[in-house]
C-alpha cells in the first residue's frame, strides 16, 4: 500500500509548500483574447529571451470576455482584448477594486472573401453584407441573385466565425449593427483554417475571417473590396488601407489592459515598456497591422502617468480609426 503513503505525504507536503511557493521568480500573468494572443506571445517570447529567464511571462487564451473575468478577479496582471472593455466588465472590476490602464497595441482587419473563381463579387457594400448576414436572412437569402440581381442564380454558401470568437462579435457589430446578431444557417468554425478550406473548395462561397489568414493562404481565396460608408469608395483590405483608416468598418484596434497595482511591480512595468517599443515590428511579423509610432508614444505616456479607465465608455463601437484613437488617447 505504498501509494497510500505517497498520497498522504504528497498532500501534507503540498500544504506545507503553499506559503513558500509564491515567492519564486517574478511572474507576469496574461490571459484573454485569442486574436491578440499571437502578438502578445511574440512579445513575451522576445522579452523572456531579453531578460534571460529572470522574469516569467505566461499567456493563456480564454477569450476577451473570459480574460476580463479573470482580470477583474485580480488573477491576471495583463488582459488581452480584441475590443474595448464593456460596461458590465467595468462594473465587475470596480467592485473588486481593480483599476486598469488601457493600451492599444495593434490593428486587426477582417476580410470578406470569395472563391478565386468568383468573377462577379468584386465590390460589396455594408448594406449588401447586412442583407446576407442579418438574422432575418436566415432561410430566405439563399442565392447570389437575391443580393444583387445581376449576380448568378446560384446557391450562396456562407462561411463565418463561430459565436464564441471575438471575430464573430466584431463582424456582427460592424455589419448587422448589433453584436452577436447573425443568421445561424452558415458553416461556423472557431478555426479560421477550416473556413479558408471551405471557401477555397466552393465556387459559390462567401466567408469572413481575420486578414492574417488571407495573407497566409495566397491564391486560395480572393478578398472583396468593401465600400467605406463614409467616403463611398471601394477599399481593398490591405495593411496600408488599415493604417490610413480607409478600410472601414471592418478593421479594429486590439488592446491590452494592465492592472494598475501590478503596473507598479518592476517586472510588469518593464514588460509593458518592452511591449510598446517592440510590438510594431513583432505585430507585422505575425500578420497584424501595427499602429503608427505616435500611437505607441501616446500609449507609453499614458502608462507612465498611470492613467486609468477606458476612452470608450463601455459601449461596443465600430470603425474606430487610428488617428481618432490617437486623439482620444491624447485628450484623455
Amino acid at each position, binding site marked *: 500500500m505504498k501509494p497510500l503513503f*505517497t498520497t498522504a505525504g504528497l498532500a501534507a507536503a503540498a500544504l506545507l509548500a503553499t506559503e513558500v*511557493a509564491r515567492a519564486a521568480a517574478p511572474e507576469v500573468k496574461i490571459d484573454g483574447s485569442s486574436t491578440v*494572443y499571437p502578438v502578445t506571445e*511574440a512579445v513575451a*517570447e522576445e522579452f523572456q529571451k531579453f531578460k534571460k*529567464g529572470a522574469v516569467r511571462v505566461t499567456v*493563456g*487564451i480564454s477569450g476577451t470576455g473570459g480574460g476580463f473575468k479573470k482580470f477583474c478577479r485580480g488573477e491576471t496582471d495583463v488582459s488581452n482584448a480584441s475590443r474595448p472593455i464593456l460596461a458590465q466588465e467595468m462594473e465587475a472590476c470596480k467592485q473588486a477594486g481593480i483599476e486598469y490602464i488601457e493600451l492599444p497595441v495593434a490593428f486587426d482587419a477582417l476580410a470578406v472573401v470569395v472563391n478565386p473563381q468568383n468573377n462577379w463579387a468584386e465590390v460589396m457594400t455594408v448594406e449588401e453584407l447586412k442583407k446576407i448576414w442579418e438574422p432575418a436572412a436566415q432561410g430566405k437569402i439563399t442565392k447570389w441573385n437575391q443580393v444583387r440581381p445581376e449576380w448568378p442564380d446560384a446557391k450562396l454558401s456562407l462561411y463565418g466565425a463561430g459565436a464564441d470568437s471575438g471575430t464573430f462579435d466584431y463582424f456582427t457589430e460592424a455589419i448587422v449593427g448589433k453584436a452577436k446578431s447573425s443568421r445561424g444557417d452558415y458553416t461556423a468554425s472557431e478555426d479560421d483554417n477550416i473556413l479558408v478550406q471551405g471557401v477555397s473548395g466552393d465556387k459559390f462561397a462567401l466567408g469572413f475571417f481575420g486578414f492574417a489568414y488571407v495573407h497566409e493562404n495566397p491564391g486560395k481565396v480572393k478578398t472583396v473590396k468593401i465600400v467605406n460608408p463614409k467616403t463611398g469608395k471601394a477599399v481593398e483590405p490591405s495593411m496600408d488601407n488599415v493604417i490610413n483608416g480607409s478600410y472601414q468598418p471592418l478593421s479594429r484596434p486590439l488592446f491590452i489592459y494592465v492592472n494598475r497595482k501590478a503596473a507598479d511591480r518592476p517586472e510588469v512595468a518593464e514588460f509593458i515598456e518592452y511591449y510598446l517599443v517592440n510590438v510594431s515590428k513583432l505585430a507585422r511579423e505575425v500578420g497584424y497591422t501595427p499602429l503608427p509610432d505616435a500611437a505607441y508614444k501616446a500609449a507609453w505616456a499614458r502608462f507612465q502617468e498611470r492613467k486609468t479607465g477606458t476612452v470608450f465608455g463601455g459601449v461596443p463601437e465600430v470603425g474606430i480609426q487610428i488617428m481618432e484613437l490617437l486623439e482620444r488617447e491624447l485628450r484623455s
Partner: protein
Amino acid sequence: MASLSPPVTVTRAAAGIDELRLNVARRRRWDIVFAAVGLLATSVGVITLLALFVDLLLDGYHRLTPEFFLSYPSRRADQAGILSAWVGTCLVMLVTAAVGVPLSVCAGVYLEEYAPRNWVTALIEINVSNLAAVPSIVYGLLALGLFVYALNFGQSILSAGLTLALMIMPIIVVATREAIRAIPHTIREAAYAVGATRWQVTRDHVLPYAIPGIATGVIIGLARAIGETAPLVTIGALTFIAYLPDPPFTSTPPFVSFDWLWSGFTVLPIQMFNWVSRPGTAFHANAAAAGIVIVVLTLVMNGFAIWLRYRLRQRITW
C-alpha cells in the same frame, strides 16, 4: 417385404445425408459471411486509425527533431517546440496517478470485498457507473469551483492533476471491481477456512490476483487523461509558457521540493490545438508532430498495459 425395405432405407438415408450436407454447407456459408462482416468491422477501426496516423506522420515527421522536444513555444513555427507541454503533461499525469490510483483501487476493493449489499451501496454503484459517462467539461467546471477557488489551489499543476484524477476514477474503480470479481470464490473461501481476516485475504490473495486487471484499468484511464483538453482549459491551463516548473529535487535539505505543484502549466493537446488554429501551414506541421507524440504516448501506454497483464497473468497459478 423384408427384402424390399433395405434399399428404401438406403435411399432415404442417402437423401438424408445429402440434405444434411447441404444444411451444413449452408451454415458454413453463414459462418464465412459473418467472419467477413466481423473482419470488415474490425478493419474500419484499424484502417481509420492507421490512415489518421500515416496522415499525421506525413505532415509532421520532419518536425520530430531533438530541438522540437527541447524548445519552448514560439511565434516562429520552425523554432517552436513542445518542451513546456510534454513536461506539463508528465507532471500532471504524475499527480493524477498518485492521487487517482490509490483512491480508486481502495474504492473498488471496498465495494467488492467489504461493502454490505444494501441500498447505500447500490446508490454508490449507480453513481460510479454514471460518473464514467459524465462529459469531461463538467469535471472541469467542478474543479474550477472546488480546487481552483474554494480550496485556493489556483490554476496549477495540482488542480489539473486532481481534476483528471477525479475524471479517471470511475474507469479504474470499474476495472478494479471486474478484476476482483474474476477471482474464483474458492480462493477466498480457502483463506477464510484457515482463519485469515478479511484484510489478510484482500492483501495476500485478492489484490495480487487482481493486479493485472487493475493495472490495465489504470493505464487505460491515464491514456484517456493524457488526451484531455476541455477540463484543463476550463481550470485555466496556459498556452504560452516558456519556463519549466521548479525541479522536484533540490540541492539543499530537505532535497525534495513540491513547488512545482503550484506552477502554471500547459499540456500537449492544448499546445496542439493552439497550433492547429494558427494561420500558416508551418504551424500545422508542428500540430501534426505534437499529435504524433500524443498518439505514440497513448499507444505505448496501452501496449505496456497489455504486456503487463500478460506478464502478471503468467505468474498466477490457481
